[in-house]
C-alpha cells in the first residue's frame, strides 16, 4: 500500500511538472491583494447579510489567499455601487452582489448603467417572496384574503414593502392587476421594518422575503398565505406548530397568478479575463458546499438554482425583458 502510494505521488509530481510547463501562466489566476465586495444596498438587508455570510465562510474555510472586504455603496438605490464597479474596467479585485435593483434602478432613476456593462460571474441563489398577513387577521388562506380585497373599495388594504419602484412594489402592482383592485402601497427602508409594521398592525399585508419575516412567523405574529413561485418550497423543517415552508401553497394554486423571484448573483467589472471570472465561479462553487451556506439557504428558504456562463447570461437577458415589461406597465420608467 505504502509502495503504491509513493509510486502514485511520483507519477503525480511528474505529470504536474509536465502540465506546468505546458500551460500558460494565466491559467491559475489568483487575487494578489484584498478583493472588494461591493454591496449596492444598506447594512442589515438581505444582500448585505448574504455578502457578510460569504465573507465569513470564505475566511473561515480559507477559500481565498487574500481577504474579502465588504463595502456598502447604497446611494441612489444601489446605483452608486453599480457605477463604481462599471467604472473599474479590468479590475479583477472587485466583485458586486446584485439584487433586483440591478434591473429596476436604471429603469426607475435613469442612472446610466445596464447589467451588460458588468461581467456576470454566477447566480448564487434566487430569493423567494411570500404574501404575509398579521396572525390576528381572520384570513387563513390566500383565497380568503383575495376575496376580502375584492369585496372592499379600492385602496382599503395597505401593502407595505421595501423601497419604491423595486421588487416589492412590482409584485404589488402585479397583484392589483390580478385582482382588479388597488392596494395602498407604503414604502419602508428595509424588510425587517416592514415585518414589524405588519406585526404592529400598521399595514395589512407584506410580500417579505422568507428570511425577513421568519422570526415573526415562529413567534406566531404573522401568517404566510402563499409563495410567489411556480412550485412550493422544498424545506420541511417545522417552523410554527406543524407548519413548515413546504406547507405554504403557491399563489398560483390559490388563484393569484403572480410569480416573482429575486436574483442573488455576483458580477465583476467589465473587461476582466475569462480566467479571472473562472476563479470566482470556482470559489462560489466551493462556498456552496460548506455547511454554513447550506444552513443560510435553509434559514432563508432560498431557491438554490446555481448558474454561470452563457446559461446565466441568457437568464439575465430574459429577466431584464420581464422587468422592463412589468415596470412599463406600472408606469415606473424614469422620464415617463
Amino acid at each position, binding site marked *: 500500500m505504502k509502495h503504491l502510494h509513493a509510486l502514485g505521488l511520483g507519477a503525480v509530481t511528474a505529470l504536474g511538472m509536465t502540465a506546468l510547463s505546458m500551460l500558460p501562466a494565466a491559467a491559475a489566476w489568483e487575487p494578489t491583494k484584498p478583493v472588494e465586495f461591493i454591496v449596492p444596498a444598506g447594512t442589515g438587508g438581505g444582500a448585505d447579510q448574504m455578502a457578510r*455570510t460569504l465573507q465569513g465562510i470564505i475566511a*473561515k474555510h480559507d477559500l481565498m489567499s487574500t481577504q474579502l472586504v465588504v463595502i456598502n455603496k447604497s446611494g*441612489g438605490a444601489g446605483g452608486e455601487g453599480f457605477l463604481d464597479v462599471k467604472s473599474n474596467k479590468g479590475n479583477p479585485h472587485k466583485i458586486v452582489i446584485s439584487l433586483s435593483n440591478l434591473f429596476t434602478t436604471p429603469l426607475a432613476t435613469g442612472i446610466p448603467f445596464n447589467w451588460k456593462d458588468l461581467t456576470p460571474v454566477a447566480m448564487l441563489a434566487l430569493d423567494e417572496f411570500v404574501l404575509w398577513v398579521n396572525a390576528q387577521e381572520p384570513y387563513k388562506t390566500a383565497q380568503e384574503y383575495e376575496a376580502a380585497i375584492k369585496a372592499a373599495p379600492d385602496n382599503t388594504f395597505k401593502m407595505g414593502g421595501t423601497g419604491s419602484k423595486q421588487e416589492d412594489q412590482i409584485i404589488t402592482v402585479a397583484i392589483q392587476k390580478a385582482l382588479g383592485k388597488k392596494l395602498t402601497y407604503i*414604502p419602508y427602508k428595509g424588510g425587517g*421594518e416592514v415585518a414589524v*409594521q405588519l406585526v404592529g398592525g400598521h399595514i395589512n399585508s407584506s410580500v417579505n422575503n422568507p428570511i425577513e419575516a421568519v*422570526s415573526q412567523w415562529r413567534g406566531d405574529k404573522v401568517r404566510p398565505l402563499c409563495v410567489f413561485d411556480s412550485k412550493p418550497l422544498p424545506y420541511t423543517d417545522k417552523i410554527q406548530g406543524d407548519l413548515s415552508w413546504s406547507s405554504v401553497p403557491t399563489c398560483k394554486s390559490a388563484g393569484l397568478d403572480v410569480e416573482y423571484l429575486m436574483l442573488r448573483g455576483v458580477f465583476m467589472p467589465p473587461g476582466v479575463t475569462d480566467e479571472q471570472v473562472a476563479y470566482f465561479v470556482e470559489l462560489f462553487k466551493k462556498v456552496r458546499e460548506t455547511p454554513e451556506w447550506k444552513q443560510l439557504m435553509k434559514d432563508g428558504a432560498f431557491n438554490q438554482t446555481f448558474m454561470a456562463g452563457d446559461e446565466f447570461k441568457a437568464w439575465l437577458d430574459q429577466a431584464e425583458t420581464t422587468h422592463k415589461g412589468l415596470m412599463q406597465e406600472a408606469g415606473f420608467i424614469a422620464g415617463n
Partner: protein
Amino acid sequence: MIVDNFINLYHGFYIAGDPFNILLMVIGILLGVIIGVLPGLGGANGVAILLPLTFSMSPTSAIILLTCIYWGALFGGAITSVLFNIPGEPWSVATTFDGHPMARSGRAGEALTAAFTSSFVGAFFAIVMITLIAPLVAQFALQFGPAEKFAVYFLAFASFVGMSKEPPAKTIVSMMIGFALAAVGLDMVTGQLRLTFGVTELLNGFDFLIAVIGLFGIGEILLTMEEGLEFRGKAAKIDPKVVWKTWKTLPKYWATSLRSCIIGCWMGITPAGATPASFMAYGIAKRVSKNGKNFGNGEIEGVVAPETAAHAAGTAAMLPMLALGVPGSPTAAVLLGGLLIWGLQPGPMLFVEQAEFVWGLIASMYLGNVVGLILVLTTVPLFASILRIPFSIIAPVILVICAIGAYTVNNNVFDVLMMMVFGVLGYLLKKTNYPLAPLVLAIVLGDSAEEAFRQSLLGSGGSLAVFWSNPLVSTIMALGLIAGLWPLIAMGFSKLRGNTTQPA
C-alpha cells in the same frame, strides 16, 4: 415573571463572568474607545470590520466583544466632543454645547468625568429597565407606526425651536438648510433622484458625519486660526483627583439625570433613537434648571443631560433589535447581521429559545459598562493633558484626523472636499451667529421625518387627521406643539402674572 428574569440574569452573570469573556470586554472597550476617538470610523464601521473575526467564537463571546466595542465607541465619542468640539456620533453633538466651553476654560477633566459618569448612569438605568420589563417594552415599540414616529421627530424639532438660545427665526433658517441638504439623493417614497443634478457623487446624499466633521471640526479650527492660533482658555491643570472632585458635585443633578434617563429609555424603545433623546434632554434641562441661562457657557449640567439620555437610548435600543429584529442604529444593524450568521434569529422567540444567549448578553451589558467606566475614568487626566500641547501643533493633527475620518465614511475622496466646504459653511454661520445644531439635527433626522410624514399620509389617503387619530400620537403631537410655542406661552404667563417676575 420578574423573578424568572432575575434567575436568568444570575445565570447570565455566570456566563459573562467567565475570565475569557472579561478579557474580551477589556479588549473590546479599549478598541471601541480608539474607534470612538477617531471621527468617521464610528461604532458601525468598527463592528463591521471586526465581525468576521468573531465567527470562530461562541455567539455569546462574539456578541460580548462586539457590544463592548460599541460601548467603548460611545464613551470615546465624548472625548473628541469635549476636547475639540468634534462630535464623532450624532448623539454627541449636544455634548459639545457645554462640554467644549468647559474644556476651553480649563475644566476638561471635569467635563470628561461628568460625561463618562453620566453615560454610565444612563446605560445602567436602561439595562435595569430591560431586565425588569423587557417583554412589556417590546410590546410598546409595536405601537409605533409612521404617524407616531413622525410625532416623535416633530417633538424633537419643535423642542429645539422653542428651547433655543438664539432667536427662533435663525434656528428655523439653520434647520431649513439642514432639511434641504437632507433631501439630496434618492427619495425613498417615489424612488426618484432629487437635487443630484446628474452628479454621481451626490447619489448618496450628504452623510451626516461629513457635515459634522466639517461644520464643527474644521469650522472650529478656522475660527481659532483667525484669533491667532491661540487655544482660547487656560491649559488644563492636571489633577489626578479631578474624578473624585467631580463626583462629589454630580449627585446635585440627580433630577436632571433621572429625567434624562426616562427620556432616553423612551426614545430608545421607540425607534427614534439616541440623537433626538440627547437634544431633547438638553433642551428640557436648559428650560427647567436654575442655571438654565448659563447653558452653552460651560455648565456641567449641560453635559450630564445629553450624555445620560443618549446612552440610556443607545442601550434601550438593543431591546427592539433583540425582541423585534429591528435595528435602532447602524451599529445595531451590523450586530443584527452577526446574530444571523451565528444562527440566532432575533425576534419574539429569541428570549424563549436562546435564553442563555440573551441573558448572557444582558449580564455583559452590566459588566461591560462597569469595566468601561473604570477604564475610561483612569484615562481622564491623560486625555485632558492633550490640551496642553500648543494649538499650532495640535491643529494640523486634528485636520489630518478629520480628513482621514471623512474619507473612511465611504472610502471617497469627494467626501474630503465636501468636508472642507462644510468647514467654510460652519465658519460663516458661526460668524453670523446662526446656530449649527439645528442644521445638524435636520440633516440627521430630516430624511426619516419626511419619510414618516409621507408614509402616514399615504396610509391615511392624504388626511392630516392621522396625527390625532389615537391617544398616543395625539399626546406626542400636543407635547410638540407646546414645546415649539413655549417662548410665546412663557411670555403669556409672565404677562398674566403682571410682570412681577422675569421670564425664565
